[in-house]
């Protein structure tokens, strides 16, 4: 078979394609809110766990469980939880405030949030563990010295706790960012990119183009674009990683 070279045709097509920009919008929305909630919740939980109350180690193990599970299988099960009638999620939400009947994964405005909730449920423990590692790395004498200098709790938090936890939080956020940028399994099972293409993240778009529309040239070019983007983020991640190791 003779090969017909098309030059940069597919790349031109990708960058001028309006759908691609919509996918990137959906991806950034997903990225921003998952990182926001996971960072906030994870840091809070880590600060709470660091109070070292009785049984905090057992509870940590309990809290951590969701992140090791298979996102695809968890995604299917959350479809059951999100069911408009038999689903527990709608039942609880309506118990708090009665919204009447609504469907999380079928509704255009709610579907993006349905995947954010599940991802936050799965990965908050990871951010929490990272922040906890940061908190545990702070030597006691820093607080003792601050206490001698009459710094109040708030000042201690701003000047000792936060700066020590920040690199760990950053590493966690960076890793979550990379992982969620290429998010596929959870969303593919939970919403499948729908309704329409509201939750069609970059990877889902690629899968649809490659394995449903069989646009091999287009999807290969799109794969390259994705890879370059992730590689850039990955490079920063590894630089960060090596810096953490030196400590």
């Amino acid at each position: 078979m003779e090969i017909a070279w098309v030059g940069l045709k597919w790349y031109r097509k990708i960058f001028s394609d309006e759908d691609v920009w919509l996918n990137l919008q959906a991806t950034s929305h997903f990225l921003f809110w998952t990182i926001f909630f996971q960072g906030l919740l994870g840091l809070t939980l880590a600060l709470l766990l660091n109070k070292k109350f009785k049984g905090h180690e057992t509870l940590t193990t309990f809290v951590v469980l969701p992140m090791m599970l298979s996102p695809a299988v968890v995604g299917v099960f959350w479809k059951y939880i999100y069911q408009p009638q038999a689903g527990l999620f709608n039942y609880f939400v309506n118990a708090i405030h009665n919204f009447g009947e609504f469907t999380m994964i079928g509704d255009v405005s709610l579907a993006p949030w349905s995947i954010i909730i599940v991802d936050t449920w799965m990965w908050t423990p990871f951010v929490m563990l990272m922040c906890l590692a940061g908190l545990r790395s702070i030597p006691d004498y820093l607080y003792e010295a601050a206490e001698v200098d009459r710094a109040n709790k708030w000042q201690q938090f701003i000047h000792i706790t936060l700066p020590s936890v920040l690199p760990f939080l950053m590493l966690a956020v960076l890793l979550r960012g990379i992982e969620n940028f290429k998010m596929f399994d959870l969303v593919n099972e939970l919403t499948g990119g729908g309704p329409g293409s509201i939750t069609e993240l970059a990877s889902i778009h690629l899968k649809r183009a490659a394995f449903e529309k069989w646009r091999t040239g287009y999807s290969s070019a799109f794969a390259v674009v994705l890879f370059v983007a992730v590689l850039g983020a990955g490079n920063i991640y590894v630089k960060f990683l090596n810096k953490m190791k030196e400590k």
Partner: protein
Amino acid sequence: MAATLDTTKSPLAPSVTSRRIAAFLIILYATISFIPMVLIVSTAFKSVSDAISYPPKILAEPSLEGFVNLFTQRTRQSAEYLETLPPPKTWYEEIVRKRKMVIAGPSRFFHRFVNSMVIGFGATFFSVFFGTIAAYAFSRFRIPLKDDLLFFVLSTRMFPPIAAAVPIFLMYRKLGLSDSHLGMIMLYTVVNLSLSVWLLKGFIDEIPKEYEEAAMVDGYSRMSAFFKIILPQAATGIAATAIFCLIFAWNEYAFAILLTFREAQTLPPFIPTIIGEGGLDWPAISAATMIFLLPVVVFTIILRKHLLRGITFGAVKR
């Protein structure tokens, strides 16, 4: 130990009240985040009609219908035909008969389960085997472009699996490897290699070089020093790495759904396709999910001290 120190008036120790509030909030979060897990187990033991009832039932009359549906294929029969049959011999036949159906044969679940085991353990064995050798080399020898090579190894993990799946799909079709155990084992070995090399390098780095050097002064070859000194010292690390590789291969979905169909299909792409009459069979899916998640839960509890290390590729050691 911390509990006995409570009474000391150290300015650093959190006050009793703040500790109580913290404990309460954590328990609240743990409870909420645990509801889906409880629901998986409880739905697995519901009957099909209880699983889709409104309002949702958290607890219902226990039933093994989900498990029976998971392991069997059934066909609906007319009442006249059912009357001609001899009475059901086993408890599972009885459950099926109550739904006006007869068992037509075993389902594909067991086959998919075996596939998951074979591919999971196969890929884990090879990635830990090659990973240990590579990690030892990266840890002990001076290798040109070492950092770049390590980054290159890691970049296979950065690659979005779907992006990699397009060329692999085309290659495997040419080579006759698509939908084969060998193909999936090879693929997962390569993807897991990044994890095993980075993790094991960290573990081997922690073993002092002096141990081997002393052994080699005593006349050990490098090979026997590796087997007699490094391997026993790194045993915990190797075990932890193996469990991480196994969990990854066990959970992997993106490659599996695109590259396997019948022969080598693993559980993650299979579970979402379990359908009963009128849509997804939730008790059967929950039963499958429960069986599928149980080993991972056990491994997570075993690994709890190493979890961060595994997920951050050895960057965080606590």
